[in-house]
């Protein structure tokens, strides 16, 4: 079920009223579980067994970890969870990539073999998200940072909690599970904030991202016939399309969870206002970056085992992050490009130089220095997006080559700039708290903005595009 579909807007009020009608934890958690499976099964019910299997394996693995005091045995049991979840990803997401790469590699040496091993399977939506979420539970219990739960329904609700099931934010068991295990109270303010976030997220997705996609797709499809100015526009548009698409989804997810008295972690904090690449990665897809930091970068030694180990770890974390996004070389190059940008700062020990959360907190406009830093960071990030969006690495390089060599004023596709200006202005105005959009003091002005946004959303809702991150 898509957040931007009519089904969801019939489904949500039904679940909401049933949830608060039966105001006890057990019934509420059963309802969360059933509604989450309905939500996911709406897309393809056959893949529900994958979530169920992941839930069952991790539930029993974690119980055995806690019941064992021998550290070697605990580690061995943990491997079952990690291998099972990685195997799910390996089969459903990466199998064909490895087979195709192997066949291509062999053909370089003159062996042309017919590829008959590729599986005809579709990628289960959200598999990268819920497998990482369950793995974090096993890892936290293994590290003795979290106590296990024996309540299977609550655990299954944590794994499949529908607002964040298919595209995050990837929740940590230590944050979400206690909320599911404890009694929730209806809060008027929390619910209103939730509805505002849903409205704001829909605006970003339906009005901004989907409108920009109408310009981005033809530009990337015909990049060989367009001048450099148009290609630059295409890249700017894609940068904002992917931001509004994914952060819009996260806003709707956080807002929906708020309606059920549950707080999810922030996933985006105005990443395009970052003043360096280090700050960008603390503001973009935070739930994934922090997952990799806590469960991969730090266990590998982080930056505390010398310069070379630190460089190696940065490369690993960014390449794995790229590979997590998709089984294609383009994503790996994207990760590699970011690791280079990050290493430039990291080697000078400047990756944690900018730590203030709010840009230009006490002034209306950014300073000249901040403008310069923001622009440079945005341009660096923007150039790497070409690898993320292109179908192949060759296409990405040719796109960049044309963009930098065929410099000309963009003669077509200029209309999308209005959406870019709109989102930059809104984000700048709202930059003090990403979780409180449309928090306007005047009642009349606030309600008028709600109505205007609804009209804009309905006016742009002709095409029902999937969220980009569903493919990951």
């Amino acid at each position, binding site marked *: 079920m898509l957040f931007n579909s009519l089904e969801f807007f019939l489904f949500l009020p039904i679940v909401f009223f049933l949830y*608060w*009608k039966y*105001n006890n934890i057990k019934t509420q958690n059963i309802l969360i579980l059933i509604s989450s499976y309905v939500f996911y099964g709406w897309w393809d019910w056959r893949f529900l067994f994958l979530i169920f299997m992941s839930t069952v394996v991790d539930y029993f693995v974690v119980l055995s970890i806690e019941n064992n005091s021998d550290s070697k045995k605990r580690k061995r049991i943990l491997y079952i969870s990690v291998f099972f979840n990685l195997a799910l990803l390996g089969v459903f997401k990466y199998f064909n990539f490895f087979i195709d790469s192997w066949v291509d590699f062999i053909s370089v040496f003159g062996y042309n073999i017919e590829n008959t091993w590729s599986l005809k399977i579709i990628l289960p939506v959200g598999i990268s998200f819920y497998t990482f979420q369950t793995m974090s539970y096993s890892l936290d219990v293994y590290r003795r940072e979290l106590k296990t739960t024996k309540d299977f329904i609550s655990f299954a609700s944590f794994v499949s909690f529908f607002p964040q099931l298919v595209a995050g934010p990837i929740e940590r068991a230590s944050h979400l599970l206690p909320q599911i295990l404890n009694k929730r109270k*209806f*809060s*008027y303010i929390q*619910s*209103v904030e939730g509805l505002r976030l849903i409205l704001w997220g829909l605006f970003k997705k339906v009005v901004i991202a989907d409108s920009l996609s*109408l310009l981005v797709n033809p530009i990337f499809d015909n990049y060989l016939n367009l001048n450099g100015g148009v290609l630059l526009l295409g890249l700017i548009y894609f940068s904002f399309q992917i931001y509004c698409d994914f952060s819009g989804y996260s806003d709707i997810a956080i807002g929906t969870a708020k309606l059920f008295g549950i707080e999810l972690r922030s996933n985006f904090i105005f990443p395009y206002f970052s003043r360096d690449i280090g700050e960008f990665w603390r503001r973009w897809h935070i739930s994934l970056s922090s997952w990799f930091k806590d469960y991969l970068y730090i266990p590998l030694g982080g930056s505390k085992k010398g310069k070379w180990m630190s460089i190696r770890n940065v490369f690993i974390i960014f390449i794995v992050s790229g590979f997590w996004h998709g089984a294609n070389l383009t994503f790996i190059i994207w990760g590699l490009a970011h690791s280079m940008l990050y290493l430039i700062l990291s080697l000078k020990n400047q990756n944690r130089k900018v730590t203030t959360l709010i840009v230009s907190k006490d002034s209306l406009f950014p300073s000249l220095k901040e403008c310069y830093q923001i622009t440079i960071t945005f341009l660096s990030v923007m150039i790497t997006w070409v690898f993320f969006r292109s179908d192949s690495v060759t296409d990405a390089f040719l796109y960049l080559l044309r963009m930098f060599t065929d410099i000309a004023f963009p003669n077509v596709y200029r209309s999308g700039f209005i959406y870019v200006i709109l989102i930059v202005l809104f984000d700048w105005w709202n930059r003090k708290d990403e979780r409180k959009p449309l928090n306007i003091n005047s009642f009349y002005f606030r*309600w008028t903005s*709600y*109505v205007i946004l*609804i*009209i804009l959303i*309905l006016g742009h809702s*002709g095409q029902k595009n999937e969220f980009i991150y569903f493919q990951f």
Partner: protein
Amino acid sequence: MNLFISSFKMKKFIKRGIVFLLLTLIVLLSLGISSVLITQQTFNYSICEDKNILIVGNSHTECGINDKVLKRSTNLSKSASSFFLPLYQTKELFK
């Protein structure tokens, strides 16, 4: 159920939600009605009698066919127009 409905906060939430939905519905209806009225009064869909080729569609036909060259044609195409606009235009013309 009683507890659910009698909760002051929930009552307030439902009440405000309904008021907001009604308000939005009224605004949407009035916008819809006024746009139909304005369209009917402002746009003139009549075509000169010497023209006997009608072109409707989106940017493809808008940019691809020049009705100044094809003297007997009228091009009403508009970029990014939805499927329904040409249908509506044609209906209006044949009234």
